[in-house]
Structures are given as C-alpha cells and as structure tokens.
C-alpha cells in the first residue's frame, strides 16, 4: 500500500511546471479572447518535454510512462490555463500504441501530431456508440466505417473535438456496418476530411467540428477495449486539468481573503468566506483523490477505469465550477472584471464541463457502473 506520488512522478510534475512557466499563459488566455493569434504555440514545449511519446513504448521512441503520469501533466497545464493539445494527443497515442501503428515513431518524436476523434461508448441509458451533437442534447451516431481489408472509409460528423484544428493525423473511434467499434487513422489532409475550427467562450480551448465524407484511412488493430480505454482516459485527462485549475482558484482566493479587509477584519476571518473556501478545498481534495484512483486504475486495474475516470470527471468538473464561482465571489465585484484572472478560470470551467460528453454524463456513468455491480470491487481492499 503506497498511494503517493513516486519521486519520478514528483520530478515529472516539476519539469512540466517549469516548462510551462516560460510563457505567461494566463495573460495569453485573456488576450486570446479578442485575438486568437495571441495564443502562444506550446507544441514545441510539449515536444521538448517529451509529452508526444509519454504513453508510447520505449521501443518505439517513447518514454513508456503510464496514464497516471499523463494526468500529472494535464494537472499542471490546468493550473496555468496552458493551451497544449494534450486532450487530443494522449488518447490518440494510447490507441496507436495499442495497435502498434506504423506512425508511432513520428508521433513519439513530435513530427506528426495526432488527435483523438472520440466516440462515447455505450454503457448507460443511451445505447450504441455516439458522438457530441453540434447543439442540443440529442446525440448523433458515431462515424460509420466501411471496411475493405486494412482500409476503412468514413462517413459522419463529430462536433466539438478538442485539439482537432492543426492535428495531422486523426485517430477515429467509429462503428462498422454492424455497429461494432472500429479504430481508424486518417490523415487530416485526406480527401473527404474537413475540420471546422470552433472556439467558444474559453479561447485557450481549440475545438473543431470534424466531418468525414468518404474519407479513406487505415484500420487500426485496436478493439473495443482499447477504444473504451481511450474514452475514459480522455475523461480522466480533462478531470486532471480541472483539478489543476481548481488549485489555482483556491490559492488566489485564499491569498486575497487574507489581505482584503472589511469592517476592520480580513474577510477570510468571516465564516461565510472561510467555510466557502474550505468547501473548495474539500471538493479539490476529493477530485484529486479520484484523479489518483483513475490514474491507478488505468495502470493497474483497467476493469475499474470506467468507474474511476467517470467519478474523477464528475467530481473535478463540479469542483472547478464551484471554485471559479467562489473565486469571483470572494473578490466581490472586482472578480468579475476583465483584467482579473478569475473570469478566465470561470470561462474554462463553463466550457470544459460541457465537452467530451459533459460532466453530467460522467455522473450518469458512475451510477450505471454502481448499478451493474462494479462497485463492490472498487479499489482493492474491503
């Protein structure tokens, strides 16, 4: 029993923090709302840090690390609202690595940037593999793949895909004629592929609506378990990113609560402020505990990953929403002004919890897992 970061993991985290500290990413997040060009390109930073190969085996030029480590990197990105295309990268590399794909060396070296085109696997009230709708709650079927040996032709549309714009290789979770999942790799520049960039509210989040109209790619040797794993890895990644952002919200709010006075006392001495910030801490620590659970399950207990990653996503999305609102509240009116950092974290919170199925969907999946009996074995022991 040892549920703490290893020395290597502490180092990985420190290195990520140092790498990201070279640019004022929070400042850039504000500037980009008005001028998207103000967003720094952090892909070179990611390549230098070795993140493209983080989840790729050493024999393919990667670092051969695990999901837990990828989560730590996302946590650091979330802390400073850094716009690094890792939500698209990591699940894509996990699929490519499982499939032993030919592209792995170029991906690991950072020469070829892949993006994961997600489909939500079945396992709750909704049947079948589905994708994000462009608008509204009614979900669309996953892209359909017509197979011909190792080749696959895709038809369909996936909306709100993180990190799709600028990606060079799309790693798609589609379905075949019978509704079974199929993994397909398609060059982003292939005929029949179009990526419509879409940014909403949080300028640091690069999104795209991806349409396949007879786009031809290669079928990857990755089954349903790999595609399910990729979906839940993505859930855990966006959770970890929210944990990082929540930590910053708490730190900034606490600092202000110690300094700002009303009625002759620092506002942090009032119970209403003190208890609200304690609630932020409670939610943050719960989300972090579940982030660790998800990272551990990804590496050591894949059968619990759907439960663990969904719980982490659910807790972290709600924690960040609560923390960002608290950050504004603690600051009074000034927290809602353009020059303050609080609105940037608020924007992050509002958009993030609606992506990749959304946090409510993750909560629903926790329930489904519990009802189908996954609970009794959760997390060793007892």
């Amino acid at each position, binding site marked *: 029993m040892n549920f703490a970061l290893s020395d290597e993991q502490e180092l990985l985290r420190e290195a990520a923090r140092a790498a990201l500290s070279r640019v004022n990413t929070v400042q850039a997040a504000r500037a980009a709302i008005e001028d998207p060009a103000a967003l720094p390109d952090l892909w070179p930073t990611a390549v230098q840090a070795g993140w493209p190969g983080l989840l790729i085996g050493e024999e393919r030029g990667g670092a051969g690390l695990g999901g837990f480590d990828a989560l730590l990197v996302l946590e650091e990105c979330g802390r400073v609202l850094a716009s690094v295309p890792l939500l698209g990268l990591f699940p894509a590399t996990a699929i490519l690595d499982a499939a032993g794909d030919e592209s792995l060396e170029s991906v690991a070296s950072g020469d070829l940037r892949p993006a994961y085109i997600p489909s939500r696997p079945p396992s709750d009230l909704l049947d079948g593999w589905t994708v994000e709708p462009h608008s509204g709650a009614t979900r669309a079927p996953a892209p359909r793949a017509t197979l011909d040996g190792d080749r696959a032709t895709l038809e369909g549309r996936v909306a709100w895909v993180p990190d799709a714009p600028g990606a060079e290789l799309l790693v798609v979770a589609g379905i075949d004629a019978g509704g079974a999942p199929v993994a397909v790799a398609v060059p982003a520049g292939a005929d029949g592929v179009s990526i419509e960039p879409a940014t909403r*509210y949080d300028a640091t989040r690069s999104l795209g609506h991806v349409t396949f109209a007879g786009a031809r790619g290669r079928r990857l040797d990755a089954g349903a378990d790999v595609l399910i794993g990729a979906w839940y890895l993505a859930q855990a990644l966006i959770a970890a990113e929210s944990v990082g952002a929540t930590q910053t919200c708490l730190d900034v709010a606490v600092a202000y609560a110690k300094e700002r006075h*009303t009625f002759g006392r620092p506002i942090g001495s009032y119970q209403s402020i003190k208890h609200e910030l304690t609630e932020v801490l409670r939610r943050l620590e719960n989300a972090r505990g579940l982030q660790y659970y998800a990272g551990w399950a990804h590496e050591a207990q894949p059968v619990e990953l759907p439960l663990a990653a969904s719980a982490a996503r659910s807790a972290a999305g709600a924690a960040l929403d609560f923390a960002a609102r608290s950050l504004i509240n603690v600051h*009074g009116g000034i927290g809602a*002004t353009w020059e303050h950092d609080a609105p940037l974290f608020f924007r992050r919170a509002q958009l993030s919890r609606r992506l990749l199925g959304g946090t*409510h969907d993750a909560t629903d999946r926790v329930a489904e897992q519990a009802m189908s009996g996954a609970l009794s074995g959760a997390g060793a022991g007892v």
Partner: protein
Amino acid sequence: MDLNDTPEQAEYRAHVRDWLERHRDQAPPRSGSYEDGGYVDARRAWQGRLAEAGLAAVTWPVQYGGRGLGPIEQVTANQEISRAQVPGILDVIGIGMLGPCLIAHGSEEQKSRHLGPMLHGDEVWCQLFSEPAAGSDLAAIQSRAQVDGDGGFVLNGQKVWTTNAQFASFGLLLARTDPDVPKHKGLTMFIVPMDAPGVTVRGLRQISGEAEFNEVFLDDVRLPADAVVGGVGNGWGTALTVLMFERLTIGFGSENFGSPTHLAQAIAGDETARRDVDARRRLGDVITELLAVRFNGYRALTVLSRGQIPGPEAGLAKVTTVNAGVAAIDLAVDVLGPDALAPETEWSYLTSFLPGLKSAGGTEQILRNTIGERVLGLPTEPRLDKGVPFSELRSRERQEVRS
C-alpha cells in the same frame, strides 16, 4: 386578496396605455449600445416624453414634476411600458434613487436647479459611492474632501462600479471630510459636475468584455461650499436614504435575468431534454423560485401602497433572482451545448453577466447579515472598528497585512 386594479388604478392604467399606444412608434428600440451617443440621445429624448406624459417619476411630488401617485401606479406604468415593448426611462438611478434623496435632503436651490433636467433626461446622474476598498463596508470610504481657502472643497480619490458615468452630467458623491472621527461620522455628500476639471471616467470591462460600469478618478477636483447635500458630516445618513430607495427599486425583483419563457422553450424544443427528468426538475425549480419572487413582490407592493416600508427581507428577492438566473443559464447551456456559449447568444451574455451581479448592491453575505440581524433579531458579530477613528483603523490594517 386581489390582483386586479381598483377603479382609480384602472383609470390610470387606461390613461397610460392610451398614451403609449399613441406614441409607441416614436420610441427608440428597447436595447442598444450605451457606447453609441446617438442611441443614448434618443433614450434621453424618450425619457423626456415619458416625463411630460407623467409616466416617469410617478411617485415624485407634483411640485417637482412628478405625479404624486403611489408605488402601485409606478408599477402600473412600468407594466404598461413593458407591455408596449418600448424602453422605459434612461436614468433609473437618478429618478429612482438620487432624485428622491435630493428631495429629502437637498437645499431649495439644489432642487430647483437639478430635479427638472434630471427628470427630463437632459442631465443624467450617477452614484459615486463605492470605492475599491469600500464595497460591502461602504463607510470605509477613503476619498478625501478637504476644505480649501474659499470655504469650498478639494476632492481626491477613486470611485468604482459607477453606472452611466460615461454620459452623466452630475454625480452624487460620498467623501470623507474628517478622518479623525469614527468612520461613519466623518462623511459628507456632494454634488459633482462630471465635467469638472480633475474628473476622469474610465470604462471598467466585465467578464463579457463589455464596460457595464466605470471607474471615476478624482484629482484635485474643486467644489463650491454649496455642493454639499444634507450638511457636512451628515453624509452617512444622506447615503442611507439613497440605499433605502435602492432597496425599494431592487426589492420588487420584477426583473428576471434571462427570460424563463425562453428557457422553457429551449428545453421543450429539444426532443431529449423535453423528456429528461433531471432537466425538467431543474427547470421546475427555477420557475418556482421566479414565481415566488413575483408574488412576494405583490406582497411587498401591498405593504408599500399602505404607506409602510417593506422590511429588509425584501432584499432576499435579489438573492433568489440572481441564483435562479445562474441555475437557469447553467441548465440552458447543459441542454444546448457549447453553442449556447457563442458570443452573440443570450445565454452566453448572461453566463458572463450574472457572476458579477451577485455582488452588485452588496454581497449576498452582507445582505444575509443584515436580514439575520434586523428581521430575525440575531445578535451582531463583534465589531473591531466601532468608535475607532478612521485614520487609526487604516494604519492598523496596513500593519496586519504586512505582519
């Protein structure tokens, strides 16, 4: 228990409705940008028309250009203006809060000089109370007004959260004239021409990117002795009058943020959401809260129409309205997805607007303190600033933060 008009009220309503029907085609659009001078001028002119017709300042005494009627008639006029889909008055703050304060505390000269142009929209007013370090704790104001050689004053300081300052002609300003007495005692209220040398207005951008409010900087602004309203050292009492009228304005909570009807339509229009028990429950909760605000507003109005002042609990309407608004927007974005967060949507605007509104007019915490103490009679917290000269209080704070 009757929501219908009395015969007299019905007659007034008919008068208002008739006037609006005859003039509504002359009204400017209901919304427009306050950065656009042409739009602001059109709204000023329209306020003048409403004033002439007796639809603005309905409760002001007749001698100051009002109609001398009660709050129910004011609400009636507002209802009819809303029904006619024309804009109301531009200077809600002047007519609703600052004018009544001048009527109560101003000199005869001040009243005859200012109330007319205020009423007709020729001179818009703004309220210069809040400061960066005096929000919830309004009496902690640091702006200084020092007596100069001529018996006049020299103003220095900074105000914030000032609505309409960018096109206001005058401001009602609270400043400290004596730092060596406890903080509520050394304050004085002034009338400040916004074009006086040394007054600088700067837009304060909000999350949404729009400048809903302004900062106002005061650098050696010279004011004559007769700029004082209500007497030197009586500023806190004068300010309380404004705050009381502010409470009455907000208290009715007739304003909903984000139309509940739009929300219901958005959910009803999505096949999945329409049948989602969770979305329905959240919608039902929002609607329930907003209906409660509306009917409690009728209760408060009844009290008011009997010549009584509704208790501070009317302020809870703001808490309910803002929080229900937040829940409503949250639900809309959950149902509609990220497209609801596109810059031009109602939902996106409100997503950005509401977090700031939570602390407008005092934070929820301060409101709950006040209501807990004044309505429920709960004991106050120990106060460390009572009876301490303001200057000493400030140096104590600075020391604490440093330590």
